């Protein structure tokens, strides 16, 4: 019996017909398989295999230069739970996540709203200006901010001193209580323009009739922002939040360039802590276990993004 949605051929269960049906299906999907095969092969080599390999290695104790692998079961995972630096790194990822969502997304939305309807001239100039840091390599951004924070010649300390204030004696990147916020500022400087661009694309697609109607009702621009722009752009903003959150979970480069996780591990994030264990203290097995934990967290956020993206 067919419900009209399933092809009649698939409901037949005679063996000979079934074989022919399967052959037919293969023929039907063959071109699709051929087309995706290159991507699938590359994905398997560079993503699937390393992931499986990392999971496997996370059950061993070994160093990068140590040819002897010792199977230790779940010992590396048990160590994670007792490792205060891991939890500090996770907390630091949390600081970057919350800070990035607040500053990058918050700032990006405000900038996008201003550029969308707040100003009448110079839109292209300001768009380019805010997007420019995104075009820079993170290493270059890190070096730039290192100079800004430099305790001797940095412009930040010079400004603070110009106001008669005393900069932090341990430096912005040397004080365990300040370092994460210093890193966050550099990251937000680079990526707020990126979020702005995404959100601006959403805001530009808001139908003009809505604003015309609200103008007839006497609404001002602030009311327009809260009652039209934000609700209509909601899905784009959610997508921007999820992209920012995933970026915060897997952050590595800006932290590595600015502090390498220091001073004394106070700015470690999970990404740099994996690197530290693998390449500095030669505990590659433990680093693999942390990488697996990071993978699980990233998959969680990825699933969240997928769910919201489908809704969009």
């Amino acid at each position, binding site marked *: 019996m067919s419900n009209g949605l399933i092809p009649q051929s698939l409901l037949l269960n005679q063996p000979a017909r079934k074989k022919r049906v399967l052959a037919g299906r293969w023929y039907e999907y063959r071109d699709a398989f051929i087309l995706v095969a290159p991507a699938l092969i590359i994905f398997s080599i560079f993503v699937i295999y390393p992931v499986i390999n990392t999971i496997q290695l996370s059950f061993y104790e070994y160093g990068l230069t140590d040819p002897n692998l010792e199977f230790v079961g779940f010992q590396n995972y048990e160590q994670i739970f007792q490792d205060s630096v891991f939890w500090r790194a996770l907390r630091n990822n949390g600081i970057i996540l919350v800070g990035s969502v607040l500053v990058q997304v918050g700032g990006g939305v405000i900038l996008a709203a201003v550029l969308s309807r707040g100003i009448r001239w110079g839109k292209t100039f300001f768009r380019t200006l805010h997007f420019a840091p995104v075009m820079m390599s993170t290493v270059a951004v890190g070096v730039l901010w290192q100079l800004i924070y*430099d305790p001797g010649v940095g412009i930040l300390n010079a400004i603070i001193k110009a106001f008669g204030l005393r900069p932090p004696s*341990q430096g912005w990147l*040397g004080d365990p209580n300040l370092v994460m916020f210093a890193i966050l500022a550099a990251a937000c400087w680079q990526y707020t323009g990126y979020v702005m661009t995404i959100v601006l694309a959403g805001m530009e697609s808001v139908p003009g009739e809505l604003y015309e109607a609200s103008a007839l009702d006497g609404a001002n621009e602030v009311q327009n922002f809260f009652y039209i722009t934000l609700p209509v752009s909601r899905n784009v903003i959610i997508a921007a939040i999820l992209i920012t959150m995933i970026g915060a979970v897997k952050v590595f480069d800006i932290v590595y360039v600015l502090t390498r996780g220091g001073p004394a591990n106070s700015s470690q994030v999970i990404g740099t802590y994996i690197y530290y264990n693998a390449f500095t203290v030669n505990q590659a097995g433990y680093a693999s276990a942390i990488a697996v934990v990071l993978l699980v967290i990233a998959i969680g956020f990825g699933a969240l993004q997928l769910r919201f993206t489908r809704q969009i």
Partner: protein
Amino acid sequence: MRYKISLYVSVLIVLVSALSFAPALSQDAPVTLDFFFLGDEITNPFVEEIIAAFEADNPNIAINFQSYPNEAYKTAIQVSLGSDDAPDILFNWNGEDTGRFVREGHLLDLTPYAESFGWYDAINPAALDAFTFNGVLYGVPYSLEAKYYYYNTTIFEQQSLTVPQTFDELLQVCGTLRDAGITPMSFGNQERWEGVHYMTIFNQKVVGEETILADYSLDVSPDTLFTDPGYAIAFQRLLDMQNAGCFADAVNATTPDAALAQFLVQQVAMYYQGTWIMGNLSANDFANYGMFRMPPMTDDAAQGNQNYALLGPISLQVSSSTEAPDAAAAFLNYFISQPVQQRFVEMTNRIPVRADALTDEIGTPELRNVVSDLATTEGAVAWLDVVLENSVSEAYLNAIQEVLAGTLTPTQAMENIRTVALDAQQSLGLGGS
């Protein structure tokens, strides 16, 4: 690791010049040797020059030279040794940095080459000892590196300061300079190793060389491992310097390069750094400087010999997986030959490993002064982070940053280090554990 500097003097006097010229190797089949080196703008041109000369003498040997800065090198060498594409020749420090690679089977036994090339007669024996494990030689030292205070003679003259003769006088010099509105010292501890150099010499001066050598080996009773109260006092000495205003602000946020720059632009009066920066000073035409070792500590807490130096050799080693061990050994032999070592002194202003490479005509007066001064010392300690087992070394490196940042007291720092050391001792099966 201890180095008998007196041996260095002996070598200076009795050194034979058997290795004056590198013999050309009869290499039939063409080979390419990968050479990983820790280099900078001073040493790289020297290495490139001597590679070109070696290749000209040995047309069937090509050398693929890859130079890395300090931190990048530490990663690169581990990654490549762990792969199937290890370099044939590599730079390395002594102590645990070599010991680990020996245990893991990455290094070639160079003893037969040392005997046939006559390295035992030509090179400072103490430096060779530093790369000898269970009677087997795994590295050929090519330079010695010592730690000194560099001071700006112009600033010292302007402030009527003299070279401090004791640690307390050093603190007084800091106070005088601060009062004059001058930052006494730069200190770039962002990469953590400058701090560990301070702690290396403080541990030796306060705790004493015998106790630290025993503790660093981890092969002592777990009950006494890193329990000497002198270790916390040594940390306190570092804090004493910080509290006396010796250091520029933000030591944990300052890179060694930035610290050197502060000294070069005369922003600070002193800088405690290795002899490897003498080449940088020459290259920048910076001549108004003098040098002195960390001054002796004269209080009762200081149990160590106060006439020790902070000194370590650096070496070239050969990978056990090389397919051309003879060619690699021939290059090492060329690298430490007398003419090449003289060229090394001329181009880099660093301490050679052969005494006959340093003459009145070759090398700067400052370099000759350093060598003469080292000859007056009664012993030496090598860098703490190089000697200690990796996890204990890391604990020390982090603890120093925390003590400087005020997030750990000296006592807490030593408790953390002892905990890590006990774990390391147990996992290595040392100390009767």
